[in-house]
């Protein structure tokens, strides 16, 4: 049974959807409730339609869900778009001076006469505060937590502003007590207290935990949040943050810094990543590690800057020309964004190659509650085989930067270390770093260097665990997803099991190394396999097929810019199972009912 509670706030950009959203999130998290939030918005600063859903519950909330328990429309447009979807036990809290309920609904209508309540003031913020306070009253939340947060929020503006806000909140709170029906189940509580963070914040903090000392970027939605956290915390974290002239400069600067010995990281989205690809090859050829975060948005080209997609996988697989070792992983939730970054840096450092973190807007701009203990800054740091000071044992003259070794890894001396001068080149070179690409072209040496670099692939495969199946192995249907769809698939699987359709889940986190054989071994015994992807062509399905020849029974794909909701998957699974006898692969493309 769904024991969660979802609040949605809709309005135009600039109407202040974010602030009440943040306040709800804080109140929930301080109450010990888990939450998951997603903001559907557009690439405009004013106007348009913004729709923020925050879903909370005692247990972990893995996605923003299918239902809304409470709607707060800040304008008529939001009311009109969503009222039809409201269920009987839901409620709509709105400013009755400016918004009419319109079409029929089963939900409880909670009109707030804002002008009268705020004594003629027409500040839209008052409308928001009234609605916020009224809603909390209906959820059975005490006034105290709200007062606490409003005080924190407005303290900087002086005590007069604090009092004004507390007064207006109190009016809304009392008005709801007197006029509206409270929800049947008051919002629960637990003894926990959670942190609330976005995927972008998690990625940035992951970088700080990994010991990143140089971060650079060129702003691009939906990755800019990483830059913002880094910039705001640069001085206290001791991280040098630079905004660069373009993404070509970004990756080159990051590689320069990494080459000189720091951990360096950068983030972008698909278009910016496209500009970085030559640099990615440089990282591989010079064997200088760099970690690049690609936060996917809907493409191609400028695409849909504020909408989510898992459409960059093939770009990551093919970025840069020639063959070279690389690492690619897609975090499965917001906490995983934090955890994956140090892991990726360790591997990139050990194997001296580029590491790519493939996130998406759903995670990067979504929010979730995290137990603060999980934000562990004492994580393992492994810089690999690095020479940072002169060691007489290393010998003065014998140093070869690209020494041919069994592992393919050659100890890396950073500039400044006596006795280890060498040239790192993007041209093919010999063990000594001397160019063999033009003048001295030599097939034997070229082959030896290719073999050396490619040998690292074996080490990389051994360093990463293959994925494991979640749930009962004998299930009727196996849902395969990758990266950010983990949470919504998890919920869909639970819903299916509850309905008597036994389902399990295989979520792929590592794209390279893939462990294709292990994946196929799992899927071989699956009765019916469906691949769920937030893209048009089934990029992961195509990738797995290219690596292993494996073809799933069905696919569920969505490419309208919005993430999956659990019912999209559940309904598609049922449809596919109903006509399982079809010999050809089935494809479902769920329709996003909510127009945002």
């Amino acid at each position, binding site marked *: 049974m769904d024991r969660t509670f979802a609040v949605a706030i809709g309005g135009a950009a600039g109407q202040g959807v974010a602030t009440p959203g943040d306040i709800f999130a804080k109140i929930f998290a301080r109450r010990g409730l888990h939450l998951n939030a997603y903001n559907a918005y557009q690439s405009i600063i004013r106007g348009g339609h913004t729709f923020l859903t925050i879903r909370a519950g005692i247990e972990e909330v893995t996605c923003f869900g299918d239902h809304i328990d409470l709607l707060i429309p800040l304008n008529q447009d939001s009311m009109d778009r969503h009222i039809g979807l409201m269920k009987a036990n839901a409620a709509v809290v709105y400013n009755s001076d400016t918004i009419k309920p319109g079409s029929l609904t089963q939900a409880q209508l909670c009109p707030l006469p804002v002008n009268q309540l705020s004594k003629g003031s027409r500040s839209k913020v008052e409308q928001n505060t009234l609605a916020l306070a009224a809603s909390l009253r209906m959820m059975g939340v005490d006034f105290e937590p709200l007062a606490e947060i409003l005080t924190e929020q407005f303290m900087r503006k002086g005590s007069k502003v604090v009092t004004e806000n507390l007064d207006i909140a109190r009016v809304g709170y009392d008005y709801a007590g007197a006029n509206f029906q409270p929800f049947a189940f008051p919002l629960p509580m637990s003894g926990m207290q959670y942190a609330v963070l976005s995927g972008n914040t998690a990625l940035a903090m992951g970088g*700080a935990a990994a010991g990143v000392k140089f971060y650079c970027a060129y702003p691009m939605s939906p990755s800019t949040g990483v830059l913002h956290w880094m910039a705001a915390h640069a001085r206290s974290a001791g991280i040098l943050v630079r905004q660069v002239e373009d993404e070509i400069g970004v990756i080159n600067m990051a590689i*320069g810094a990494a080459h000189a010995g720091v951990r360096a990281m950068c983030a972008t989205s698909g278009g910016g990543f496209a500009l970085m690809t030559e640099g990615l090859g440089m990282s591989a050829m*010079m064997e200088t590690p760099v970690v690049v975060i690609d936060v996917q948005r809907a493409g191609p080209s400028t695409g849909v800057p504020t909408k989510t997609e898992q459409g960059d996988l093939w770009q990551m697989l093919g970025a840069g020309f020639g063959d070279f070792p690389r690492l690619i992983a897609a975090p499965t939730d917001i906490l995983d964004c934090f955890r994956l970054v140090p892991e990726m840096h360790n591997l990139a450092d050990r194997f001296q190659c580029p590491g790519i973190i493939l996130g998406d807007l759903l995670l990067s701009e979504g929010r979730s509650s995290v137990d603060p203990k999980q934000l562990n800054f004492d994580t393992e740091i492994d810089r690999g085989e690095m020479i940072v000071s002169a060691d007489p044992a290393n010998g003065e003259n014998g140093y070869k930067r690209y020494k041919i070794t069994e592992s393919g890894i050659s100890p890396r001396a950073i500039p*400044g270390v006596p006795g280890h001068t060498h*040239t790192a080149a993007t041209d093919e070179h010999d063990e000594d770093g001397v160019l063999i690409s033009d003048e001295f072209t030599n097939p034997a040496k070229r082959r030896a260097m290719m073999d050396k670099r490619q040998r690292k692939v074996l080490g990389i495969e051994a360093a990463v665990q293959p994925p494991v199946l979640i749930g009962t192995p004998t299930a009727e249907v196996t849902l395969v997803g990758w990266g950010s769809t983990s949470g919504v698939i998890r919920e869909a699987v639970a819903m299916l099991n509850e309905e008597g359709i036994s389902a399990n889940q295989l979520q792929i986190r590592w794209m390279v190394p893939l462990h294709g054989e292990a994946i196929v071994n799992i899927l071989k015994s699956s009765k019916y396999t469906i691949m769920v992807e937030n893209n048009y062509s089934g990029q992961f399905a195509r990738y797995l097929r290219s690596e292993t020849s494996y073809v799933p029974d069905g696919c569920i794909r969505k490419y309208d810019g919005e993430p999956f909701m659990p019912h999209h998957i559940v309904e598609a699974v049922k449809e596919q199972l109903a006509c399982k006898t079809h010999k050809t692969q089935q494809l479902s493309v769920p329709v996003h009912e909510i127009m945002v």
Partner: protein
Amino acid sequence: MATVLQLQPLTAADFKGKVDPDWCPGCGDFGVLSSLQKVLAEMNILPHNVVTISGIGCSSNLPGFIDTYGMHTLHGRALAVATGVKMANHKLNVVVTGGDGDGFGIGGNHFIHTIRRNVDLLYVAMDNQIYGLTTGQTSPTSRKGMKTKSMPYGNVEEPINPITLALAAGATFVARGFSAEPKHLANLIKQGLEHKGFSFIDVFSPCVTYNHDNTYAWFRERIKKLEDDVSYDSSDWHEAMKRGLLWGDEIPIGKFFQRTDLPSLHEAEPLLDQGEPLAHRELRIAPEIVRNFITELM
């Protein structure tokens, strides 16, 4: 920016690279390499404290021919890479070398922005007004009318003027040298290395194989040293602009402009201004700071 160490004096031979230059006999780039080696030795800068960084081109092969830490990066990207190196370890002496195509064509954007940031490094452009490595195409500094393999009927575009471009972008040290004037060039390189901030030297470095317009003789007939004009004041930006625009029978070489009142990027950055280079700092963040990061989220 130089890290000077008074041990036993170095010689240019201490900077001899693992292989000999593969440039065509007579190529102007030889003069740039030897001047650079000579000055580094004279200034007693130890090879391991220098990073020589280039893009791609004949001229960009230079890091392979000098014994320092070297980075032979991508076509046009040397300045971006060099900025990263300098930020990660501001104690290193960073020298960027490359060609006119590399620096003003494909790398033009980084040129402007590295200037604007006043990154403390020496950038020596070996300007031969041609794409040498790719066997003779028009470059951004090729003269209007010049016939090349890519513009066989003559270049119809106006060339870039690297000197005035650098001045307009706010460069704090702007000079022009000629590779056949090694003493003069060495002096500019020395001043450039000593300058705290971005030092730019555009060096006429003739391509004897593909550029038959801008030959040694052609330059020799025209160049005139700014240093010979005692009235010239290199702190006067407007005057530098005026001289920078001269191009014809008389082409000035020498130091056009220098100002020393602006901090370089690492000096302007509080994080770097004090303390060890980033590359040698503790990776972990203090627990009380971490606690603040997390409390903010609660």
